[in-house]
Structures are given as structure tokens and as C-alpha cells.
């Protein structure tokens, strides 16, 4: 902490605004930076304007921001993730363009390029993948296990608030000051105060700390929900595969987020209070940071990909009209991956000076993870085998995943060998590898899930044609962008280079840049699909709730589900209970009796903490100490005040539940069942015709 710090606005000054840079030195670099800042500002103005024009502030506040309903929180998570995804993709395109601009320096300055890869990584991992995964899980978990909400609905709201406010810091850093140039891993001593006295690493630190707290709380919430709130008869071995993957993810969150928090806070202590955890002098040791970061970082990738595996498991079963093959082995494989993911972190820094023996141990441990993953791939293929397969959008994503993910996984096994790693470490080969597992693995999985469960959430199907266009664009875009990077990586091109000289890289760079444009088109096609689907929603409604002849509990209720999810908590007797019930003609039973239902009341605590934590982070980044102290106090006071609330639940009377449920049951009886050949026809109102032959 330097002595000139403090004052009313800390170290904030006019130089922090990018427009000043543009006026002083107008060049391509400044234009890109200002365009990015302008997009953020215009985005805010447009959103505020639209909300005001359509008079939506009231509904937004009452129905969404203060809601503790897990379904709405899930949807808000996904909206946030998609907004951040747009920024992450654009940054990717700019980076590809910079490297394709030919041997030499391109059009960006080195500093700016470093900011781009730092924000791109931070955003894609913490503010796209994580919230997207959490959004889907939030929406699905209670529906799949037969519960009315998650275990801690208000904490759920707070988690969302903290994640969003942390993500907003990355947006603010576009307009005020600059983000870190230290990559998403923010290795000290480079990110320490000695080499990087600016605000960049501080933006990174606080965004990571605050979103990390949100993530940890969500992990606790999901774990407790699945352990304690399962419907009667829903034993562990009857859980949908997706729930198993979320249990494993939650375990990973609970145990793997602390190392990240510890690392970031220690870095903060170094930067703000002149501690010596990771400095070059006075006994600091940066290897402690590398170990802590990857102690989190490796479980993190499984935390993201396991839920995607879960989504694929549900999709392969449904669109093959078969039971999931090898359920037990999939459960064991998932749990094995979760546990083994804690034993491999060192493979992220084989070249940082350990003994050969330690490298070998971690290399072998890393290769071992390929075994349970292989089990999964074979189980999925066996699920497809002799199924009645429909090549629907989620299924197409699944098939693209199966083929591409295996390539990504195998390149991981190559990297796990320390001797090879010495050759390709820190090259674009690595970049190709992790994009190869994260795009076809996580992103395709989430998009597949989005297409699959969208009708459950909103009551109408997404447009099939645009969906297929999307699949093609994502797949082709991915292959064009990232497969060339394997080759240039092997040729020795380092990652994160803003300039390069070897002309033989050039053709690959151009292909990759074209690929990134295809990915941009893919992102636009997702928006187009949503737009078209909303326009056509009257012809694609599925109020009965089961458009795909699916197998798990969430499909046995209306689409969209009522706030209380289940009129009567179901009694589960089998794995794939709903599929079993349909086969025996016992689906959609009329309950004998209804009971009053207790639901959490709306509360604004999540929103309050979201705003306050945002201001708190901003104050810390800019050394505005009075504001940081004030917001700390306000957060404490508002939280304590919230604990004094006694009236936290509202009652939905049994009579109202009965009326709504019986109206829906009438709808079920009136609907015409459709077979699988007419899944995308307007007559699919969500009632599936049992297809006995293929169901076994």
C-alpha cells in the first residue's frame, strides 16, 4: 500500500478512460479498445431504454430479480452466461485476426493483446462456463429429484448476485482502467505489485474472489439439495445420470474453490499490504501460487465437463429411446474422475523444475483419467447401439461431441507425457487441446441441453432448422479455428504471442481466423434461432410437457412448470421412473389429495449484495478506502437485517394447486399423442405416444 493512496476517488483519474488514449494517440489499437468500451455503454443504454419503453422495470424486479425460484435463477444464470459468451467470442475473433495479420506486429499493441487473452480466459471459464453450467443445474436439479426448490433458495439468489457482480467488474474494466495482462492464471511475480502496479491484476483478483464465493455457495447448495431433498423412493442409484454428475461437480466445488480463493487473497495481500507470499525477494515463493492455482484449476475443468457428460447421458438415452447403457459403470466412472482430478494438478507445470520422478507420477495419474472417460464414451456408444435414433439438434451436438472430444482427450494423453510436454509446453498445441475439450465437451453439451430443455422451461420448442444450422456452424467453426493450432503448436509457435515471424505459420493463422468468423456466425445463429422460435411460439407450444418422449421426472410435469414444480411430490419406484410409468400406461396419475405448499417469499437480499459487492470491488481496485469500508459495513448490516426476517415463506393453498393441476390433467387427456416421426410437427403438444418396441 503506497502512501499517496486514499482521498475521495483513490487512484482514479481521467487517464483511466480509454477515450483519453484515443484522443492522445489515434490508432487501430485505441480504436479497438474504444469500440469495446462503446459496446458496453451502448449495451447498457439499450437495455435500460428497452426496459423503460416496454415498462418492464416492475415485472423485472418482482418476477426475476427478487425471485428465489430456482427455475428463474437458473434462467438468469444462463442469460448472463450468454451475454458474457458474446464478449468472449468477440475477443477470440480479435485475437485470431491479430495473429492472422501476418508476420510482424499486427494491429494491436502487445499490452492490449495480453489484456484480450487474459479477459477471454477469465470470462470463458468463470463467467460463461460456470454460470451456464449452474444455470442448467439450477433449473433441473429440483425437477429431476422431485423437489420444490433447492435446499437454500435465498443463498442461491445470493450466489447469482455475487457471480453477476464479479462478471460486471470485467465489463467495468473495459470502460474504466484496464484489465490484467497476466493471463487467466495471473501468475506472480508478474502480477505482483513490483512488475504490475496498475489496476489490472486487482480487477482479476476481486472478480475471482467474489465469484469464487458465489460458486462455493452454489456447490454447497447443490450437494445438500441432492443429498437431502430427493423425493421418496429416489434412491441414489435411481438418480438421473445428470444428478450424479452434479453431485460430483459439487464435491469438486466445495473442495477445489478454496485453493483459488487462498491463492487470489494471498496475491491481494502481496499487492495491497506488501506481504511476501509470492514476491521474488524476502522469502516469497511463486511455486506456492502455481500449486494452489492448479490445485483448483484442474478439478475446475472436471467441474465444468462432468455436468456436460450428464447432459449428454440424458440426451443419448432419450433420443435413442433406450435406457442409458451401463448406468452403474457411468456412476463409478464419474466419481473416479472427480476424485482423480485432485491428483493431477502438477501436469500444468511439468517444466517448472520438479524431479523426474514427481513428473512421472503426475503424468501417469493424468493418463489414468483417460480410463473412466473412455468407459463413458463406450457407454454412450452402447446406448446409441440399436437404439431408435432421432437426429435431433441435441443428438447432433452429442455426435459431434463424441467424435471431436475423443481427439481432444487423446491430445491430452499426449500432453500428459512429461517428455513430450517439454516440447509442446506453452505452445498453441496446448491451446488447441483445451479448446478441443472445452468446446465440444462443455459448450456443445450446454447448447445441447439448452435445445433439449428449452421447451420445458418456456413451454415451446426451439426452431429445428436454425438449430441444425447452429450445430454445423459451431462444429465447422471449431474445427477450422482450433485444429490448425495443433499443427502450428507442433511447429513451435508459442501461445499468447501478439507477434510472430516464421512465414510457415501464416496459412494456419489465416484458416484459424476464418474459423473464428464461422464461430461468430454460430453465435449469431443461436440468437437467430431464439428470435425465430419466439416468433413462431404459437405453433410449437408443448403445454403437456413431454415433447421428446423423455425418461426422467422433469418431463412428467407441465411446461413451463408451476412455481411449486410438483402438485404432489412423486413417489419414485424405478430409475427412469417417468419412462417406466408411460410404458405401463400409468403416467399422469390423478392425485388423491392435495396439500398446502410452502414456497420461499421474494427477497431483495441477493440484489442488494450484488450491487454492494460490485461497488466494494470497484472501491478496492481503485483504492477508494472510505467506500470499501462503507460497503463492507453495509453488506454486513443488510445481511444481519435479513436474518431478522421471520416471514420468509408464502403458502399456496391446496385448492389452488388442485385447480391448476386438474386443468393441466384435462389438457393432457385432450391432447393427441404423437409418435417420434412427428416430433417437430405442430401437433406435438408434448404428449408422447408410447413406442413399446424401441423402449426396452
Amino acid at each position, binding site marked *: 500500500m503506497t502512501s499517496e493512496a486514499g482521498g475521495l476517488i483513490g487512484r482514479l483519474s481521467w487517464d483511466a478512460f480509454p477515450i483519453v488514449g484515443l484522443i492522445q494517440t489515434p490508432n487501430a489499437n485505441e480504436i479497438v479498445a474504444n469500440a469495446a468500451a462503446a459496446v458496453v455503454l451502448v449495451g447498457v443504454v439499450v437495455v435500460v431504454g428497452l426496459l423503460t419503453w416496454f415498462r418492464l422495470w416492475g415485472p423485472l424486479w418482482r418476477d426475476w430479480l427478487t425471485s428465489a425460484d430456482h427455475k428463474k435463477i437458473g434462467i438468469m444464470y444462463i442469460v448472463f452466461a450468454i451475454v458474457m459468451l458474446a464478449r468472449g467470442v468477440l475477443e477470440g475473433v480479435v485475437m485470431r485476426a491479430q495473429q492472422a495479420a501476418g508476420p510482424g506486429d499486427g494491429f494491436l499493441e502487445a499490452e492490449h493483446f495480453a489484456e484480450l487473452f487474459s479477459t477471454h480466459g477469465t470470462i470463458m471459464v468463470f463467467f460463461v462456463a460456470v454460470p451456464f453450467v449452474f444455470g442448467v443445474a439450477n433449473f433441473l436439479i429440483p425437477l429431476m429429484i422431485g423437489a420444490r426448490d433447492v*435446499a*437454500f433458495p435465498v443463498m442461491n439468489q445470493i450466489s447469482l448476485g455475487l457471480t453477476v457482480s464479479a462478471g460486471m467488474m470485467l465489463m467495468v474494466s473495459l470502460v474504466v482502467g484496464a484489465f490484467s495482462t497476466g493471463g487467466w492464471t495471473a501468475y506472480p511475480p508478474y502480477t505482483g505489485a513490483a512488475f504490475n502496479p496498475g489496476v489490472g491484476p486487482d480487477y482479476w483478483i476481486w472478480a475471482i474472489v467474489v465469484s469464487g464465493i458465489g460458486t*462455493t455457495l452454489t*456447490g*454447497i*447448495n447443490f*450437494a*445438500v439439495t441432492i*443429498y*437431502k*431433498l430427493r423425493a*421418496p423412493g429416489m434412491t441414489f442409484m435411481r438418480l438421473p445420470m445428470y444428478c450424479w454428475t452434479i453431485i460430483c461437480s459439487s464435491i469438486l466445488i*466445495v*473442495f477445489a*474453490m*478454496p*485453493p483459488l*480463493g*487462498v491463492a487470489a487473497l*494471498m496475491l491481494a*495481500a*502481496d499487492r495491497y*499490504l*506488501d*506481504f*511476501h*507470499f509470492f514476491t521474488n*525477494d*524476502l*522469502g*516469497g*515463493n511463486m511455486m*506456492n501460487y502455481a500449486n*494452489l492455482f492448479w*490445485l483448483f484449476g484442474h478439478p475446475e475443468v472436471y467441474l465444468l465437463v462432468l455436468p456436460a457428460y450428464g447432459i449428454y447421458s440424458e440426451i443419448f438415452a432419450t433420443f435413442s429411446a433406450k435406457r442409458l447403457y451401463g448406468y452403474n459403470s457411468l456412476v463409478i466412472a464419474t466419481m473416479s474422475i472427480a476424485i482423480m482430478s485432485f491428483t493431477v494438478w502438477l501436469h500444468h507445470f511439468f517444466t517448472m523444475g520438479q524431479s523426474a520422478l514427481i513428473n512421472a507420477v503426475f503424468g501417469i495419474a493424468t493418463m489414468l483419467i483417460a480410463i473412466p472417460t473412455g468407459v463413458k464414451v463406450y457407454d454412450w456408444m452402447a446406448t446409441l447401439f440399436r437404439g431408435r435414433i432421432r437426429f435431433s439438434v441435441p443428438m447432433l451436438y452429442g455426435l459431434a461431441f463424441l467424435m471431436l472430444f475423443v481427439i481432444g482427450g487423446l491430445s491430452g494423453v499426449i500432453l500428459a507425457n512429461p517428455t513430450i510436454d517439454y516440447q509442446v509446453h506453452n505452445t498453441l498445441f496446448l491451446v488447441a487441446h483445451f479448446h478441443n475439450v472445452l468446446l465440444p465437451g462443455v459448450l456443445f453439451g450446454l447448447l445441447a441441453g439448452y435445445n433439449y430443455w428449452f421447451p420445458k422451461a418456456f413451454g415451446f420448442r426451439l426452431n429445428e432448422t436454425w438449430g441444425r444450422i447452429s450445430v454445423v456452424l459451431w462444429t465447422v467453426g471449431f474445427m477450422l479455428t482450433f485444429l490448425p493450432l495443433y499443427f502450428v503448436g507442433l511447429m513451435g509457435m508459442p501461445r499468447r504471442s501478439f507477434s510472430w515471424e516464421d512465414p510457415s505459420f501464416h496459412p494456419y493463422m489465416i484458416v484459424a481466423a476464418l474459423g473464428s468468423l464461422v464461430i461468430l456466425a454460430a453465435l449469431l445463429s443461436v440468437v437467430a434461432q431464439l428470435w425465430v422460435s419466439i416468433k413462431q411460439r404459437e405453433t410449437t407450444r408443448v403445454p403437456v410437457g413431454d415433447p421428446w418422449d423423455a425418461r426422467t421426472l422433469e418431463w412428467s410435469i407441465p411446461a413451463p412448470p408451476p412455481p411449486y414444480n410438483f402438485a404432489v411430490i412423486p413417489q419414485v419406484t424405478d430409475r427412469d421412473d417417468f419412462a417406466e410409468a408411460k410404458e405401463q400406461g400409468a403416467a399422469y396419475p390423478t392425485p388423491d389429495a392435495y396439500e398446502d405448499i410452502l414456497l420461499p417469499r421474494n427477497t431483495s437480499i441477493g440484489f442488494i449484495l450484488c450491487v454492494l459487492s460490485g461497488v466494494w470491488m470497484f472501491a478496492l481496485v481503485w483504492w477508494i478506502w472510505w467506500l470499501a469500508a462503507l460497503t463492507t459495513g453495509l453488506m454486513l448490516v443488510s445481511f*444481519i437485517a435479513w*436474518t*431478522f426476517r*421471520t416471514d420468509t415463506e408464502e403458502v399456496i393453498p391446496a385448492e389452488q394447486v388442485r385447480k391448476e393441476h386438474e386443468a393441466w390433467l384435462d389438457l393432457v387427456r385432450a391432447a393427441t399423442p404423437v409418435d417420434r416421426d412427428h416430433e417437430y410437427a405442430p401437433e406435438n403438444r408434448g404428449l408422447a405416444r408410447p413406442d413399446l418396441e424401441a423402449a426396452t
Partner: protein
Amino acid sequence: MKRAPTHSYPGLNLGRRHPGADKATEVVSFGFWVFLMSDLVYFGLMFAIYITMIDAQAGGPGPHELFDLTSIFAQTLILLTSSLTVGLAMLALKYNLPRSRIVMWFGITLVLGLSFLVLELRDFMAMAEKGGVPQRSGFLSAFYGLVPLHGLHVAAGCLWLVVLGIQLRVFGLTDVLMSRVVRLALFWHFLDLIWIGIITIVYFGGLTYG
């Protein structure tokens, strides 16, 4: 599915005398337990960092110059006694003793917690006088990253005691508040456990290996 009637969540269970609160506590207490386990990883890592940095004294003062075992002994006694008093508050709750009894044990726990913090701060100030500040060396950074983190938890526990004490006075023994007492007791015992780790690893370990 039958569950054991007397022990369905971590810590001392409220049991048959408080069926409503007992049921409400089951899920929340489990959740709190998971949180504590996550917190335990925080401490575990800080212990690990401390162990790797015991030698990183960079010519600055080390454990032998800085640690005052008499004060640590007093702090240990105080903190362990406070764990007893918070346990007595739990027992008073479980066996339906008057509410004032619970608040009294809370009060005594609070006094003990604050005395612990005062002694700890005095130690830090004494260390600082001998040049033992976190800016001096990696070893001291690790020390100040770990021990005050525990102190911060004790301070948070003290704040919780005050807030919960007030709530007990205002609302009486509602199910929600009883369930909070259970969790506060869990939290307080957890702090004790961490302290045992601190005297063993930070102080004894530091004096042995530093």
C-alpha cells in the same frame, strides 16, 4: 425410510423435545457442515503454506524470537473454556432450561471470545515491536495469513453470538433460532479445532523446525 431418531445431523442434536426444530435443522446443519469442510480446506492450505515457508525467514526474526508460549497457553485455556460454555448453552437448549440460561452462557462465551482476541492482538503487537511484521519475510507473511484468519473467524463468531443473543431476546425460542444455535455451536467447536492445529503446527512446529 427410517432415520435414527436421536442423531440426524452433525453436532449435538436437539432431539425429541423439539421435533419441529430438529427437523428444520437436519438439512441446514448438513449444509453448514459442508461449508465448514470447505472452510477447513482454506485452513488446511494456509497450514501447508506455513509449513513450506517456515524457513523463508529472509534474515528476519523467527519463531524463537517472536513466539510467547505463556500467552498462547492462556489463549488456549480461554478458547477451550469457551467451547465448554457454548456446549453448555446447547445443553440448556436441548433440555428446555429457561431462555435466560442460554443467553447467559452466550454472554460468557462472548466474554471469553473477546478476551482471546485481545490477547491475540497483544501478541501481534509484541511481535511487531520485535520487527515481526508480515512485510518482513515470507515466513511472517504465512504466519499473518493464517493466525489472524482464525482470529477473524473468532471475531465473526462473536458478532454471531451478539446477533443471535438479541434475536433470542426478541423472538424467543423459535424453530429457526434453535437451529441457528446448533450451527453456532458447530462453528465455535470448529474454531477450537483449528486452534489446536495452530498451537501444534504454527507454534510448536515453528519452534521445533524454524
